[in-house]
Each structure stands twice: as C-alpha cells, then as structure tokens.
C-alpha cells in the first residue's frame, strides 16, 4: 500500500527527465518544483501572490493553472501550518479516533491522566499547547498522538501499568511525537506523494485542500507507522520528560519490558507491533542512549499509591 517517498520521487524525476533531457541538474530542480507545487497546491493563496522561478520551470508538465481557492473552503496551509492549524488537524483526527473507541466513562480516570500528562508536557518545549489526554474503551494495547497536543491511550495499555511513573513514561513518549511533529510530517509527506501521483497521471484537478483531504479516511493516520527513528527518538525524549517531571526514569522501559512479554500473535498488540519497532530493539536503543547518564539522577518517585485504579470490568 505504501510507497517510499524517495521511490515515487525518483519515478517522477525519471519520467519528467525524458522530456527535458538536456537540462543539467534536473534532479534537484525538479525536486524543488515538486515541493514548491505541493506547497502551492495545498495553499493556493500563497502561490498566487508569490510566483517563483522554480515553479515556472515545471509549467510544461505540471499544473499550469493553480486552482483558485473556493471562497467557502479556506485553504489549509499544510506546508507551514500555524499552531491553530495543527490543533485543527489534531482535533479532527482525535475526533475520528474517538468515533472508533469512545472515552472510558470514568471522570476521575480522565482527570487523572490529564493531570499527569499536563505535568509531563510542561517539561517540554511546547508547554504552551492546549494538551488533551484521554483513555479510550479498547482492549488493544496502544497509544496515539495527534498534532496540536492530543494524546490517547487505550484501556488495554492503561491496565498494563503499575504506577504513575510508568504512565508518565508512556504519555511522555506520545507528547514527544507531538513536540517533534512526527505525525504532522507524515501527513505532509503523504500530501507530497499524492501531488506526485497526480503529476504522473496529470490528474491535477480543481480541488482544494481541506482538513478531510489531508487526513484521509477516518483515523487511518493513527494506523500508520512513523519512521523507526522517530519511535526511538520519542522513547528517548519521553524518558527524559518523565525524568524532568520528577518521576523515576525507568517507567517507560518497564512498560516496554511488560509489552515485550506479550506474544506477537495476541491480537491486542497486533497494530502496536506492526507500527513500532520490536520492544526489545527499543529497550536496547534506549539502553545505548542512556549509558551512564542516569547514574546521578536522584528522581525515584513511582507513586503506585496515587496511581488511579481502573474500576473492574463488568
């Protein structure tokens, strides 16, 4: 189903090269054109006011007429989204996700994860986002992040946790995805690919970019994998954020240990294992990054007493 961007880009480059064979350094120029055009396409307003040389170079084979934005649909600037844009995207994605699995009906639980999550998020460089956390009714073991500060964990994963430090570690991992805009970058990449595909089939229609278009179907974006490196990075950052918040640093690795005990053929981890590197690899990667750096950290609070216990399932 998925194409690597480099593959698609090279197909575009090859095809186009056949009719503009004389030009030197065509590769880079076209790469720029594609990027440029993708930006225009996503944000037509901007392209109209800022014609560029690179864009002109692509006129032979690309969209010569950039569609004018329909007045009723505001153009969405995915190329360089504002914080408000990010939140708008994240709200839509999370709303879709909640359509698949609603929040656990337990006000105290929801408040508790927001308290822990907000405190961990406050240790990040995006402390100013309006952070939202929720536990959803699902036996799957998984957690999700969406642009703009939305973090969801499943009841199945929550049930695996033993203390507040572990919760902080898990939320820290998801917060890091938001801080690093990993999901946003994934969406941007997809749009660029989409643009490339239209370029190939010359089917650049008079369509405007809407939030729905960017996200795709339902919450499928939540089922997509990020780069392995993005996951390792979120593990390192998540551990650091929880540590900065004063928790015992090993909450996240403990949860990874716990997840690594679950057999791969258990359906509750199918999506998690499909979209993430193996827990063992994550543990090794974390271990290599930590080395002796935690030797002098005094933080040791795990707070199992305060950890909110789920009500038993009926």
């Amino acid at each position, binding site marked *: 189903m998925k194409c690597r961007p480099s593959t698609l880009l090279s197909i575009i480059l090859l095809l186009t090269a056949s009719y503009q064979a004389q030009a030197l350094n065509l590769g880079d120029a076209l790469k720029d054109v594609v990027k440029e055009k993708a930006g225009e396409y996503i944000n037509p307003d901007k392209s109209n006011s800022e014609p560029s040389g690179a864009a002109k170079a692509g006129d032979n084979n690309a969209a010569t007429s950039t569609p004018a934005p329909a007045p009723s649909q505001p153009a969405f600037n995915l190329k360089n989204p504002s914080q408000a844009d990010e939140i708008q995207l994240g*709200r839509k994605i*999370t*709303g*879709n*996700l*909640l*359509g*698949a*699995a609603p929040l656990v009906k337990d006000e105290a639980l*929801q*408040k508790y994860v*927001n*308290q822990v*999550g*907000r*405190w961990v998020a*406050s240790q990040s460089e995006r402390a100013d986002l*309006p*952070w*939202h956390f*929720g536990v959803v009714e699902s*036996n*799957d*073991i*998984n957690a999700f992040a969406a642009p703009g500060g939305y973090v969801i964990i499943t009841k*199945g994963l929550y049930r695996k946790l*033993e203390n*507040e430090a572990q919760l902080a570690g898990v939320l820290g991992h998801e917060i890091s995805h938001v801080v690093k805009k990993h999901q946003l970058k994934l969406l941007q990449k997809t749009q660029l690919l989409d643009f490339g595909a239209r370029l190939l089939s010359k089917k650049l229609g008079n369509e405007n970019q809407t939030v729905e278009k960017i996200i795709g*179907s*339902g*919450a499928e974006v*939540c*089922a997509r994998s990020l780069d392995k490196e993005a996951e390792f990075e979120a593990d*390192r*950052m998540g551990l*650091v954020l929880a*540590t*900065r918040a*004063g928790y015992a*640093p090993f909450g996240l690795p403990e949860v990874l*240990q716990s997840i*690594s*005990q*679950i057999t*791969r053929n*258990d*359906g*509750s981890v199918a*999506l998690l294992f499909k979209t993430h590197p193996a827990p063992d690899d994550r543990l*090794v990667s974390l*271990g*290599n*990054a*930590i*080395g002796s750096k*935690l030797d002098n950290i005094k933080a*040791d*609070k795990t*707070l199992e007493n*305060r950890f909110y216990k789920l009500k038993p399932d009926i």
Partner: protein
Amino acid sequence: MKLLNPSIIIATILWLPGLSLAAEFGTALKTDTMRSEPYADAKTTGNFARGEKLEILSKKGAWLQIKTSKNTGWVRLLSIKRGAGASGGSQISGVLGLASGRAGTGQVVATTGVRGLSEEELKHAEFNENEISKLEQHMQSAEQAQKFASQAGLKAVKFNYLPKGVAQ
C-alpha cells in the same frame, strides 16, 4: 511456541504463582559486562552474550544482580529483558506476567470480538463531536498540573535530552 493447549497453560498459571517468587529469569538484550557492585566503575566479574539466558537475583536502582551459568554480578537493567521472553516461549512469560499482577485477561487468550482498534476500524471511524468535546472538558491547565505534582512532592529537575546512542 507451536501449539499450546490453553487448558495446560491455565492449569500451569493456576499452579505456578508461588514458584515465580523464587526465581525470575531473563535474557541478555546485548553483550555486556557484569560488575561486582552496582556501579559503573566497580570491578568486572564476567561477561555474557546477547541472547544468553540468566537468572535475576535482585534489583538496585538502575541495576540488576544476575547469575549466568558461570558468574554472578551486577549489570544495567536495560541490558536485560525480564522473563524468558515472548519470542522464545510464551508459556513462562505469560506466567510471570500474571504472577506480577500485570496480566489482564488478554494475556493468554487473544481478544476477539471485543472492541479493538484495528486498522479497519480506524479507517472507518467517524468523527464524534460529543466525545471530542468531553475530552476537551477534562483539560487541565499548567497551573493545575503543577499543583497536582507538588501534592506528591514531584519537583521538576534539569535533565538534557539524550542523543542517539551508539551500539556497544
């Protein structure tokens, strides 16, 4: 790994919890050195190789005291995967999980028919305004979170982000 008779697993689980207190096993996630004490500069007592099975004797901070077939010593806990490992055999890990109170019902029997979040379900999900508004109502401010943290004596500490590590 092949086919485990569920009734055997359940019988084993019912019978084993007491035993798991006696010994916990683990697998080396990487090749590493053991030390006589839980400190980086303590003298070495031996080595183990990635994949080696070992026994976990005790834990102190970020260190585990372990016993290999040849030696005993301390090693950083992230070098060890606790439990015999799901990749090897699901039986023992399942038991350990349950014994430590971690396992839900989903541990042994795959959850089917219960609400899940499969790719298909995510793809067909429809926006739920009611639920997203509820989520938003639970928001906590930075100040509220700060207060919540201090109630448990949590204090923010300085700690730099970790650069990507080098495989050792």
